[in-house]
């Protein structure tokens, strides 16, 4: 793009019209399917004024939904951070029987519909499920309670960190770790001082994606939640309930919060990618 006008050869400038067309098509598509709905969310949320917006967001059920979403996201991201690191470390740095099976299984949550994921947990932990009666006898509620929502969210967001790290770690190979070992470093020292710094940008990227999905997950959570207002409603579920009650302004107000969180994630991701492209290395290097 830096080269233009006279420095470009005639052969290249012939394609200028085609390029402009493609660019316009791309931008129009983007505006129609991404920017317009996003703008609509905010426009609708503020359609009855700021007061209604603030009331909808500050309403106790909404606050409970926001808190639950943040709690579930925190737990899910923490779980998948640990699992993703452990899984990608073992897949990329060691060879063991069942390795390809593990790699395939990591992708399972992506290939299964979230509704099915939720139903699996109902089958396992529901009142008539495999572990349900035993758990209930011991006073543990999973389905239609917070633990079920956490389980479903962890399951759905499981691949993000591992998927981001496995190719990165495989590309980096074992050389750095082997050198560190010859220099006398212990396993933990190697992990924290060599492996982790090498993948930190990729890891943050994976965590961000995982975070975005955990906050927005609807299908699986909807199945296991039970939709109890103020107790088991996450933000997406709360939006749905408000919408079904024709409370559009409130629904869009909460939705706009979710959208804002998504935009924040996107901004962070862009910053990370810019840093990763620098000399310190990062995603893809």
């Amino acid at each position: 793009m830096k080269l233009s006008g006279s420095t470009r050869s005639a052969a290249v400038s012939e394609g200028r019209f085609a390029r402009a067309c493609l660019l316009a098509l791309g931008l129009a598509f983007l505006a129609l399917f991404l920017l317009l709905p996003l703008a609509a969310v905010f426009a609708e949320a503020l359609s009855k004024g700021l007061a209604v917006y603030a009331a909808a967001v500050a309403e106790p059920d909404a606050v409970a939904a926001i808190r639950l979403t943040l709690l579930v996201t925190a737990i899910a991201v923490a779980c998948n951070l640990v699992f993703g690191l452990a899984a990608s470390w073992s897949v990329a740095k060691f060879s063991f029987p069942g390795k390809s099976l593990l790699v395939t299984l990591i992708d399972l949550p992506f290939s299964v519909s979230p509704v099915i994921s939720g139903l699996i947990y109902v089958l396992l932990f529901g009142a008539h499920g495999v572990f349900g009666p035993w758990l209930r006898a011991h006073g543990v509620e999973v389905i239609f309670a917070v633990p079920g929502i956490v389980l479903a969210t962890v399951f759905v967001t499981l691949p993000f960190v591992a998927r981001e790290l496995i190719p990165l770690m495989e590309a980096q190979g074992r050389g750095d770790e082997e050198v560190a070992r010859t220099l006398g470093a212990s396993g933990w020292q190697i992990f924290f001082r060599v492996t982790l710094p090498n993948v930190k940008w990729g890891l943050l990227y994976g965590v961000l994606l995982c975070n975005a999905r955990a906050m927005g997950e609807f299908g699986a959570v909807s199945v296991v939640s039970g939709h109890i207002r103020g107790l088991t409603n996450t933000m997406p579920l709360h939006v749905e309930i408000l919408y079904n009650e024709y409370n559009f302004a409130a629904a869009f107000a909460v939705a706009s919060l979710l959208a804002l969180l998504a935009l924040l994630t996107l901004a962070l991701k862009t910053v990370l990618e810019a840093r990763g492209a620098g000399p310190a290395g990062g995603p893809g290097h």
Partner: protein
Amino acid sequence: MRIDICNLSKAFDSAGRALNGIDMSIADGELVALLGPSGSGKTTLLRAIAGLETPDSGEILFDGENVASRDVRDRNVGFVFQSYALFKTMTVQENVGFGLSVRPRATRPPKAEIAARARELLRLVQLDGLEDRTPAQLSGGQRQRVALARALAIDPGVLLLDEPFGALDAKVRKELRGWLRDLHDRTGHTTVFVTHDQEEALELADRVAVINRGRLEQIATPAELYGAPATPFICEFLGSVNAFDVTAEGGRALWRGHALPLPAPCPAGAARLFVRAHELAALRPGSAQPGIPGSVEGVRLSGSHVRLDIRAAWGGPLLEAEVPILDFDSHPWKRGDAAVAAILAFRAF
């Protein structure tokens, strides 16, 4: 530190290389090259010494002590990888100081001492002033020297280098070669390096171990290796060589139905004679010395000498003869010239 390797074997590793009953000893302070074609197992042997590969059988002794049960981190080896494997998230100084900074608290020097030691080593490898750079900001040759300084920082009993000059361009390679020899002579570390470049091995090492298909063909000084190669493989691997498949008969060697004119009697039972390119003289027809009649089919300039491809009138593969450039300048050869290839020296197997 003295290293003894006794009957070391390893079945095919993940890269398909194997080791087969390797026996060799490396004296304290010696600089030894492991030379072989790619896939010969030389890197596997180096990694086994470091403890990065586990042999199936055989022993490795450091100063007489079996190190089989010693983990890599307890072997005190300085290993320099072909790709250098510098820690890219650390500065040059942090890279060099890494080995000291991961020591158990009891034996770990204070931070200031680690930094001072790192700077001292960077001076030794002539990189002072670059302490705060990251590896990405260094040239290939500089990275190589940082990797070396990092390995030296733990005061290793042995320095192991995998293709130390493999990733560098020819000029830097040559410079670093002399520099490494000099560094070795000053620090006195027992050093083993892997290379596929015979010139590098012969020029740099005290002794060269030639490895082929997981076996040790010969370990000897460069002069012995070149002058008295123990196996046909070494003959063919070192320098350009002409091979004659012959039948020996009462001191004569029959090649393609003709008696080869040899400077010495052919030993009984010999089946293959090797003649280096510079041991095959290209003569004008009619000269007194007997040789193989033929004609020049190619003339190639190769630095200080000219290589002639000679097609023997008796058939067989092209013969290669080396002519010093000064002789060539006074009596040039050209394609199609009739020539007689006279064998000046040979080795029989």
